[in-house]
């Protein structure tokens, strides 16, 4: 435990209190949003894809009606917090990879992300480095995550926005025959569902990548 009161802890409380006093939001609204931020995680998304890999009917549902498929794994996009979140709109599409097509998601404009089902975006997803470069040099950026795709695999970058959210359904990897939904869900890490990694038997953690700082003036 950090047994010291930091300026940042104090600043967070001070800002929050002042915003509440100015009527921007209530303490109860803040608590509700915070609870939402703490609860969500990649598990429902992993389960959704694992189930789709095992059940062709569910896969069809996932690809045609992402919201209905989300609901089947316990995530209601219409009511993720009970009163909706401001930046999680309810147009959600799941992008199916094939052996010759790989999807990866980004929000070039800001940091839109399918939070109700995938949790909070990782730090690197929010960086200008990722957002600006992925849309122009996707293979280069993916290689920085250790993902080298063969030339005959087309890379499609899907740009999220305030109206549309996306998630990737990767190809089920070899070596997973006979696996249960739980086993498959374990290898469907957050990064696989963003599209910066491929599900791999034995790999159950996200890629470790050094997040580059945002652009600095050349003089730095």
């Amino acid at each position, binding site marked *: 435990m950090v047994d010291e009161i930091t300026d940042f802890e104090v600043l967070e409380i001070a800002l929050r209190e002042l*915003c509440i006093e100015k009527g921007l939001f209530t303490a109860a609204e803040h608590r509700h949003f915070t609870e939402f931020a703490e609860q969500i995680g990649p598990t429902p998304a992993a389960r959704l894809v694992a189930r789709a890999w095992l059940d062709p009917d569910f896969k069809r549902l996932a690809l045609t009606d992402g919201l209905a498929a989300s609901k089947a794994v316990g995530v209601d996009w219409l009511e993720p917090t009970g009163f909706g979140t401001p930046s999680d709109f309810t147009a959600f599409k799941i992008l199916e990879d094939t052996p010759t097509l790989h999807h990866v998601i980004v929000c070039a404009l800001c940091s839109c992300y399918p939070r109700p089902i995938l949790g909070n975006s990782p730090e690197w997803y929010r960086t200008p480095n990722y957002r600006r470069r992925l849309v122009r040099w996707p293979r280069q950026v993916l290689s920085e995550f250790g993902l080298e795709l063969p030339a005959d695999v087309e890379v499609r970058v899907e740009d999220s926005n305030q109206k549309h959210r996306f998630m990737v359904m990767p190809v089920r990897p070899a070596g997973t025959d006979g696996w249960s939904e739980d086993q498959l869900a374990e290898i469907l890490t957050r990064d696989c569902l963003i599209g910066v990694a491929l599900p791999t038997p034995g790999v159950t953690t996200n890629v470790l990548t050094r997040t580059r*700082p945002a652009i600095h003036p050349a003089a730095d």
Partner: protein
Amino acid sequence: MSTAGKQPEAVTVEALDEIVQRNQTWPVMAGRYGVENPVPPWKTSLDGMCDAIDRAGDDLSFTFNDRRDEEDALSATRYADLPYPENQLVALAHSLVAHGVIDETELRRRLDAVRARLEA
């Protein structure tokens, strides 16, 4: 501090600069106390605050996109030495002051009051 006619990035908020200089960032504090949590405990509360502010939209003179653009710009310039999520928090404070939602004097007073309460 004067905000009249200035771009938010051009505004200096001394109270925030002082916080940056004291550098009680999470990597420093976690290292000092041998804590392994990757982000500070106030992180989800900050997430909740950003969501709540974005929802307040119509009551503010700036939009969700303005706030995120300013966060990017400020994190790359004035607050480039801060790690995440400290840079997000300080950028949010900066935007609220620069847009006149919160007055810097009022912010200073509240910072002192909150610290006194936590240290009581």
